[in-house]
């Protein structure tokens, strides 16, 4: 599994570095709210806290603060 991760990582990074140039006036679509990493931050934070409380995994993208609430 780890080999697969390293491979995926290498492919992704090389893809990123080969990205073509995007001029500032071509970034209109990227500026749209739906293209943000998390268009609805609060909603995502609530879901993340639920998943964190009910699953054995956590983190990765959003830090949802601390606390437990995890019966």
């Amino acid at each position: 599994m780890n080999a697969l991760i390293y491979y995926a990582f290498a492919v992704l990074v090389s893809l990123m570095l080969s990205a073509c140039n995007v001029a500032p006036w071509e970034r209109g679509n990227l500026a749209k709210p739906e293209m943000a990493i998390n268009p609805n931050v609060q909603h995502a934070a609530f879901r993340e806290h639920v998943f964190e409380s009910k699953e054995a995994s956590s983190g990765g993208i959003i830090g949802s603060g601390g606390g437990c609430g995890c019966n």
Partner: protein
Amino acid sequence: MVLVAAVVVIKKNKQATSGKNALLALTGAALSLPSPELKADSPVDQPQLNTQFGYYSEAGNRMQVQVYHGGFVVPVSDWFQFSFSYDQDTYSGASPSYVVPANSADIVTKASGFDLAGGPAFGLMNDTILKGAFADTAIWAGLQADLANGFVLPTLPVNVAQKVGVDPNDSGVRMQTELIKRYLEKKQSGGDHTIKQIIEAHPLETRHMPILKAKLFFGPYTLTASGGYSIEPDYTSTFGSTYHSFEFNDKLTTVTLGYKFSNNHIFRAAPSTGGPHDHGGSANDFNADNTYRTFSMALSQVFSKNTLVYLSGEYSRKRGYLSNPYKLVHIKGLLSAAEYTLVGINAPLDLDQNKGWKYYTGVNLIPVGIDLFREVRPDKRDQWSVTGGVNQYFSSLKGALHARYRYQWDDWAIRSHTLDLAWYQQLSFGLMIEPYIRYYSQTAADFYAPYFLAPRADGYYSSDYRLSGFGKLSGGITITKQFVKGVTLSAGFEYMTQRSSLQLDGKGSGDFADIDAYLLTASLNINLSSLGGSIDNTHQSPRHSHHGGPLPAGIMEGHMLSAGDFMVSYNYSHADWADGFQRGTHSGINDQELATSACRVISIGCEFKSTAMRMDMHMINFMYAPTDWLNLMLMPQFAYKKMEMTPLPNALSDAQGGPHENVGLGDTLMTALFKVFENEHHHVHLGIGVSAPTGRIDVTFDGFLNNTSQTQSYGMQLGSGTWDLRSSLTYTGYADQWYWGGQVSGIKRMQSRNKLGYALGDEIKGSVWVGYKATSWLAFTLRNQYLVQGSIRGFSSRMEYQPSLTDPADTPQRANTENPANYGGKFWDIGLGVTFSAPQGEFSGHSLSVEWLQPVIHDYNGYQLKQDGTLSVRWGYKF
């Protein structure tokens, strides 16, 4: 990076098109608030306010969680942004505690005398064993017969017996041991018991979490720092984080380094008797700490004009107490019958039980029943994760696809895969819909099993279903409506199915982790400065929302909006009752009179009195005017109530006073306002609405939401429990700087009894007021209010739980607050108010009103605490 791009685009647009679209685009971009962990961004342009309500519910009456979130973001300067948020979660319901294997059910369930919440290892062990073993006459008779036939009782393990201080040859203890041995053998063989998961109820708990956050922008470098605190009865957490983002490659690439920490303190409350007036609180019988540290690195890259990709890695280091203090494990063979007998029954009771069992037996687990122990997990956990994602915009569809995958692994042998797919579709009228699905799969921790038939070599055990192997599939939809003037409303629903059989490799077994649940969310985001006004101010000036001047803060439904207008107001009221008792209009009531007269005398009269009560109401009022003659209002309410009780002379000698409190969603009001008459100086409108019983009326003293725990008194509950009709008639008028008005409003309970068998009294209230506008931004009001409130009809069947009583009217009352006759009355108050409003400028549309309502004459029904007064505050914002 994306937001920087947004500004660029807007500047470009501004030259070519009207400013309106540019500003709208800017608003949208600013509201999106990308996650700081992955990307740099620029400060918001306006102060923003956000609120969210969330509800999570598991099938089968398991956990239910209500989440309230509020926060704001303030751009202090073009390089510094400050934000604050506050979360409050309320938890109730039940969750799995442990699993018992086949043939063992009877010796570990509550039927055997075991108490989960406290589980004192010595006293209850004694009861558990003896009750079972000595009650079994067949075992006793069999042992007697064997002894008569020459059976010799085995001697006791010398080392344990010596530590306990028992003679290894003591015939009495040897007899006990043999009885218990036979009892265990009998229980563990034969029978038709099936494997079962024991679900334990948890008391209602509330968690509070304030978070402060600052962002500093220095060209291509962004620093984010945050800190917060989370507190709930059995867990406190102090946490903080810092993120450093660098943009380069013509702002197409961002690298972010992050560090998070949290220091956590875990408690476990000792069992409380949970009686109706056991206000002594409960002590903690367990304290532990742990520390989490997380290091992360993320890279995001604009790949094309429609594609954004990102990759992040995270390492999380957890140290300290990582077990769950409430979860138990069933382990066979860890302790022998002799050890249960010697330590559980014959060891000195005054020893520290946490060390006691280990000292005597060498077993490092804490027994709470026969073959039942508190779980133990390793005190370290190292967790790694890799996350990759892509956001792809499709111009032809005007929609965006988000795909994200996370792989996580740790040194507990848990491996998990998480795949998220979401589609964001922009529609007309500022609507956006987001359907999404999520798949999650994890393998089990290496020390997890539903139960253990033999001890493990490493000494780690957990039967927490969250550490088992399972998969989860969930899907949901979010609908967001962006209003023109910077207001965004959003609502979402998600359903999740968790099954062992959904685990990725299909190895999941058993159904211990199986559960269905759903999520509901509703949120509101507002740009606080009047961006809308600046867009539209060439077309129209802000219209007058009501005649003459701002209303006193304590007046609801007092004005109407013009067609097309939308208003949000936040109303807060605070009231205290603490200044002794009153009967009718008479004060100076002594304890003896309360004891003999404040409760309906059935047995010994009142044993407790309330000494103080506090009530805080938070109400959010959404108001919309489809036409000039009709306005619609929706008002969810949120309440916090606290009461102090103290024993009266009649009380039993061991009675304890103390506080109890209650917090949560109250009843929800829905009202329509109809314009009846209007000319230049006078206006009359009628309000007709209902109050939906969304507030709980069954909140208990011990927090358990079951039918046997005793409920808090009528005034402490969060709702009426009935559908109520609410009507009002309002007149307002003005001349020059003066304005005035009057309102008559009423509440009629539309059901004669709620589900618990009572109904709050009806109400009718009359107010007249006069106001003076001193300046364009400052006004004063003077108000006279008279309120008549009926006493409670019927009687709660849950106030004093007595299953043997079939007629609730026979239920004894032990406190003044439990007598329905001690509610309502006639109340005359005078109110002084002040309003600050912004007629123009950056904060046009905002107003803040404050009013103090001072009692003049209060004529109470029965015996009641005197009210000190009521403070009302209203912040309103009209769009």
